[in-house]
């Protein structure tokens, strides 16, 4: 009894600390707040949410049952199905879900101030994101590790399954386009960055050959070698940048880099996996976990001040980074970190096949997502410790702030953030770049923020350029891995779909079918990457809302599945657990979709398209377009984006229809109608995990 009391006292203290930190962050006006408060408040909320809400879901809603064999135990083959230590699997799951998403969204959302983004990240993850990851993991675990698409087919019918497949493919294409564009924008005119990223390709190949032919399976040796070469390349990059012959060799414009990444995507995804994909995947995972840990420690050591105000005037929708009001656009701009539909695909991938006991799903699913959310909070922090003038100089498109430091300083000064042209050029100089203007896409902003923190913690000013390029390399590394793996996955999805129309196209071991599907996939995302660099209005700011809508839509679909499953399990009384986040996501995505289709300038895609095509027809050229061809390009791309948004909206509506129909059927049926694998009893007290 005493122990219990003590435990509750501990939680109470944590709650008080959380409330106090949040108060410091939210109520402070006029003076700057230390980022430590923001991070502490978040951690307290995560712990409390995990301790109480996830426990409620685990014990009452899902009724996790440790006497039931998990697929890892019943199907244990030592390869795909392996009972795995809870902490190890948590690390594996986190490494699989964490990518560039939680790093980009919060940085873009910082234009509204730190508070709206923080609140959405924290509330969103507790009630929506972590719930989705946990429940999808649970559903898949109870179905032998079936994928999201298969589960939708099982529980909601074949048509719903088909629609979900098309939806997943569309999101995959958009995400690849958005991520590709982030890399392209970060490396444009940056020989240092381009050189280090280019080095990773032959480096990964050497590692791959080493692990396959020279010392088979010696991943540790190859990885240590890889990390050392990477750091050397990073250090040598500054000399490349300064060199008269090497420098120009690695200096490319954004459209050139767009072509480079398109060709890279096509070639890399057709190479054998052991040569490039697997070794770089290992390398990027090490780097990812290392950087996230270092950043968390760095924030506490340096305790930087948040220079961005709690809220800015741009919550009214007039912001330069992305257009649209706080509702609904904040909620689609920050997807990963709050709630990400993509995680539903991973929670129904390898992780459910590795869970040793049912109760572990809580820590791995819910806890893993809380950790990803923490990455998003750190990204937001890194963006908000920058001088707001610098933040807006880096993230506003050239169409608004011009292309010179003088002009940019003037425009940003009018918004109310005093900044001198010297500050802009000095920042560029500090990080070893020629310019920082309009480096949209989140990665460079985050890299500058991280460089500030890391340089303050280790090495001082002199190492700022090194840390900046280290951060860029870290992001580019796993984005390129995602481009490679994503193109492969997209190819399989396309082959799956095409196989229904013409069977030979579905054969995954046929080279021609393989090439056709890969080319289709690359062409689709490549189009958006290239247009993002040549379209005067295009770029990350155009594609990101599309990605956000798509990703949240997928989350909506996954949560609809979870809701249907709860009803089919006859646990209707807990249905609010999934219904509340489902409803919120549908409200946000449908409103955002509606506005993107029907709203006036500058939010609506069709409104922009109309404006530019009318002007082009009349023969006038509107800035920032420079020619009639530019005008037509803007018009076409906006029509295209508008159409895709409309498709997303229809897709969600169709899925909601199927979910409601299936749920009504299940409610009328007095017995559970869920399709779970049969119950097998697990031996009590046996430690199945092979990691001993």
């Amino acid at each position: 009894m005493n122990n219990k009391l003590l435990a509750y006292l501990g939680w109470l203290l944590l709650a008080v600390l959380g409330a106090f930190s949040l108060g410091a962050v939210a109520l402070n006006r006029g003076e700057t707040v230390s980022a430590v408060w923001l991070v502490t408040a978040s951690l307290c909320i995560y712990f409390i949410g995990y301790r109480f809400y996830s426990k409620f879901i685990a014990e009452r809603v899902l009724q996790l049952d440790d006497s039931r064999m998990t697929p890892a135990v019943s199907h244990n083959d030592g390869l795909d199905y392996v009972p795995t230590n809870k902490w190890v699997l948590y690390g594996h799951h986190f490494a699989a879900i964490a990518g560039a998403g939680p790093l980009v969204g919060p940085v873009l959302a910082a234009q509204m101030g730190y508070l709206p983004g923080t609140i959405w990240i924290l509330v969103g993850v507790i009630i929506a994101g972590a719930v989705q990851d946990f429940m999808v993991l649970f559903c898949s675990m109870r179905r032998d590790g079936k994928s999201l698409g298969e589960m939708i087919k099982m529980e909601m019918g074949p048509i719903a399954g088909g629609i979900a497949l098309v939806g997943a493919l569309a999101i995959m294409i958009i995400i690849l386009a958005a991520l590709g564009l982030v890399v392209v924008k970060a490396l444009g005119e940056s020989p240092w960055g381009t050189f280090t990223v280019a080095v990773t390709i032959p480096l990964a190949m050497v590692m791959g050959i080493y692990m396959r032919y020279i010392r088979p399976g010696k991943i540790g040796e190859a990885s240590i070698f890889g990390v050392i070469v990477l750091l050397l390349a990073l250090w040598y990059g500054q000399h490349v940048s300064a060199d008269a012959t090497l420098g120009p060799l690695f200096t490319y414009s954004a459209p050139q880099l767009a072509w480079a990444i398109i060709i890279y995507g096509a070639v890399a995804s057709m190479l054998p996996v052991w040569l490039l994909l697997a070794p770089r995947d290992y390398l990027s995972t090490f780097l990812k976990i290392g950087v996230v840990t270092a950043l968390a420690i760095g924030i506490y050591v340096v305790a930087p001040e948040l220079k961005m105000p709690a809220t800015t005037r741009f919550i009214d929708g007039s912001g330069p980074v992305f257009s649209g009001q706080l509702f609904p656009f904040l909620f689609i701009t920050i997807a990963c970190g709050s709630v990400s539909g993509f995680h539903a695909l991973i929670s129904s991938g390898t992780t459910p096949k590795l869970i040793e006991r049912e109760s572990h799903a809580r820590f791995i699913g819910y806890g893993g997502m809380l950790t990803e959310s923490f990455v998003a909070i750190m990204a937001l922090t890194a963006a908000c410790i920058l001088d707001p003038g610098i933040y807006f100089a880096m993230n506003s498109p050239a169409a608004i702030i011009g292309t010179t430091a003088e002009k940019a300083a003037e425009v940003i000064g009018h918004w109310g953030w005093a900044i001198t042209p010297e500050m802009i050029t000095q920042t560029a100089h500090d990080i070893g770049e020629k310019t920082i203007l309009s480096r949209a896409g989140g990665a460079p902003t985050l890299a500058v923020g991280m460089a500030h923190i890391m340089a303050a913690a280790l090495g001082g000013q002199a190492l700022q350029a090194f840390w900046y390029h280290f951060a860029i390399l870290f992001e580019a590394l796993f984005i390129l891995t995602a481009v490679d793996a994503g193109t492969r996955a997209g190819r399989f999805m396309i082959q799956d779909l095409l196989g229904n129309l013409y069977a030979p196209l579905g054969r995954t071991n046929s080279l021609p079918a393989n090439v056709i599907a890969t080319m289709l996939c690359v062409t689709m995302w490549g189009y958006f990457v290239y247009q993002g660099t040549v379209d005067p209005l295009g770029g990350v700011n155009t594609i990101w809302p599309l990605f956000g809508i798509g990703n949240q839509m997928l989350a909506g679909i996954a949560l609809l599945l979870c809701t249907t499953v709860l009803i089919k399990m006859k646990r209707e009384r807990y249905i609010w657990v999934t219904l509340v986040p489902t409803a919120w996501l549908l409200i946000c995505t449908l409103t955002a979709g509606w506005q993107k289709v029907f709203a006036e300038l500058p939010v609506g895609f069709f409104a922009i398209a109309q404006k530019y095509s009318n002007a082009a027809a009349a023969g006038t050229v509107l800035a920032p377009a420079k020619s009639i061809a530019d005008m037509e390009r803007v018009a076409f791309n906006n029509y295209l984006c508008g159409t895709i948004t409309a498709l997303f909206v229809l897709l969600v509506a169709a899925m909601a229809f199927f979910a409601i129909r299936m749920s009504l059927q299940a409610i009328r049926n007095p017995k559970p109608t869920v399709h779970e694998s049969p119950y097998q009893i697990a031996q009590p007290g046996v430690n199945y995990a092979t990691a001993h």
Partner: protein
Amino acid sequence: MPLPTERSTAPCVCECAPSKPTTRLAERLAFLRQAIRRIIGAPDYETYLARHRQIHPEVPPMSEKEFFRFAIDRRYAKAGPRCC
């Protein structure tokens, strides 16, 4: 399923000396190695070998080299999508 006893009968594929009884430090290092492999999603030969001897003792297992090739191709053949 007492896997540690399995290990003593298996030919030693790691660098640890087979003649000496496994020390706690060696055990911990082996755990760490396995954990890191699992986290980064790399194939783990020891786990496969131990399990293979349990379920198909009559079938000769793949060599480490064969297994490594097989497992890597398999992991990415139906590569699940990567996160954002």
